């Protein structure tokens, strides 16, 4: 098992008076597992606590209770992340080549050749190395972030709403890229999102998340039609209603 999250509890203190504080629980006993080479989708609305869970898994926040264990090793180097807001994902004062080489430690790795290779992997060419983040489009910047995530050859990448801020056509390109990279490097993803359609495109397993709790887990994405929990059903039906109506079903099955 690459990642094992056990019984995470996290709350935020709301008011700190002199006589105790009211704690709002955000995560109420969350446990999940991600295996090697597996892509798990975590679906929940905004405010359900999924981003907090992501931060705890990354280690930038400490849980009030519970553990996060990475596959036996110290885990830090095997792990990387791509965030939703690409505009603040790269230091605006650094050029792309510095952004990419940040996670690399050895001097040897700070070579142009390797950085160029990373960019090629995500479909960009070497000329991007000299650019600043604000000179790139959303899709391009997100690709740079993915390239940066790949730089240390991690086993696990946390994708925190990584495609949500992008246009639909760009979303599809990035999802395809992520799929290809997963096959090539045998990566594991935890794909946190609110968008069911991107989960069905990319993921193997699906976890439904609501108000700090896991309400349902679907062992394989093809079995989504059999969800039982009312929240999951409501979400599924809502997405079905929003798709192109019945008249277009014929077009779908071409």
């Amino acid at each position: 098992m690459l990642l094992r999250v056990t019984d995470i509890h996290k709350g935020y203190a709301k008011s700190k008076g002199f006589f105790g504080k009211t704690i709002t629980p955000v995560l109420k006993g969350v446990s999940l597992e991600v295996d090697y080479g597996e892509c798990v989708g975590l679906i929940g609305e905004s405010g359900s606590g999924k981003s907090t869970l992501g931060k705890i898994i990354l280690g930038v926040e400490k849980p009030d209770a519970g553990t996060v264990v990475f596959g036996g090793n110290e885990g830090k180097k095997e792990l990387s992340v791509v965030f939703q807001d690409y505009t603040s994902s790269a230091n605006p004062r650094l050029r792309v080549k510095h952004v990419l080489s940040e996670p690399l430690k050895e001097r040897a790795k700070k070579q142009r050749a390797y950085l160029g290779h990373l960019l090629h992997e995500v479909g960009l060419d070497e000329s991007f190395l000299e650019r600043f983040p604000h000179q790139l489009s959303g899709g391009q910047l997100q690709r740079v972030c993915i390239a940066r995530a790949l730089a240390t050859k991690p086993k696990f990448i946390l994708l925190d709403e990584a495609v949500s801020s992008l246009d639909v056509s760009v979303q599809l390109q990035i999802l395809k890229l992520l799929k290809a990279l997963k096959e090539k490097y045998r990566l594991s993803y935890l794909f946190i999102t609110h968008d069911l359609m991107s989960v069905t495109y990319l993921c193997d397993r699906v976890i439904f998340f609501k108000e700090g709790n896991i309400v349902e887990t679907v062992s394989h994405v093809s079995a989504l039609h059999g969800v039982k929990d009312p929240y999951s059903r409501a979400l599924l039906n809502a997405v079905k209603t929003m798709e192109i109506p019945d008249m277009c079903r014929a077009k779908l099955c071409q």
Partner: protein
Amino acid sequence: MLHVHNLTISARTRHGLQPLVKDVSFSLETNHCLGILGESGSGKSLTCKALMGLLGDEFDVQGEVLFQGQNLLTLPEHKRRKIRGKEICMVIQNAMTAFNPLFTLKNQLLETLRTHLDKPDSMLLKRMLEAFEKMNLYGGETLLLKYPHQLSGGMLQRVMIALCIALNPVMIIADEPTTAIDVVNQVEIIQELKKVRDLFHTTMIFISHDLGVLCQLCDTLMVMHEGQKVEQGSVQEVIFAPKAPQTQMLIQTRLELLRAFHACTEVAPCS
């Protein structure tokens, strides 16, 4: 009802005029719903803000916008302000930013209603509460006393649409009203908007980058790309026989995602 001819919007920069929307023309009949589809940066929001006269001096707007015979672009500001809100109402993208966090909803909604409707407060309140009920917002009295941050994005969006209903305009422009909302709430909001159309025969312009949402609600679709109109036609035409490459790409993208979704969520897909 609405005729837009050769609308061109340019930004005034240090290096001169930079065109953002180029030569857009379209017409809208009464009780008709036009959907404007386009990706971010295609100019769809700018076009509608220009219609309402909400663009500041940094923009240069050329062309003609005939609303019920009057050219909105050449109208003096005080006349335009009368039309804005009374005849044309706008529902914007992020409901949370539309409201002032310092005042209760009652305060702000009444302020808007007072500007456009010359009636005593008690009547305005009654109208607002009726609109709430039509939007399936129950407990209107308590709702009015709340502050914007106490409500979720979805509810605030419905409050904004309820405000539009209370003003009973001739035309509603909705600028990506469902984008910041989760899917379950989106479905409800679309249904409310459908109801509004059926009940009041309001003309609508609906902007979105989401094809699914537009198909639910609109009669005609206009596709914009990089500031230009690339396609226009009925929903059927645009979806089944798209002519412009950009439209084809948008539909293809959606179809690819949908196929995967279908395969997972139907017991027997494509049977």
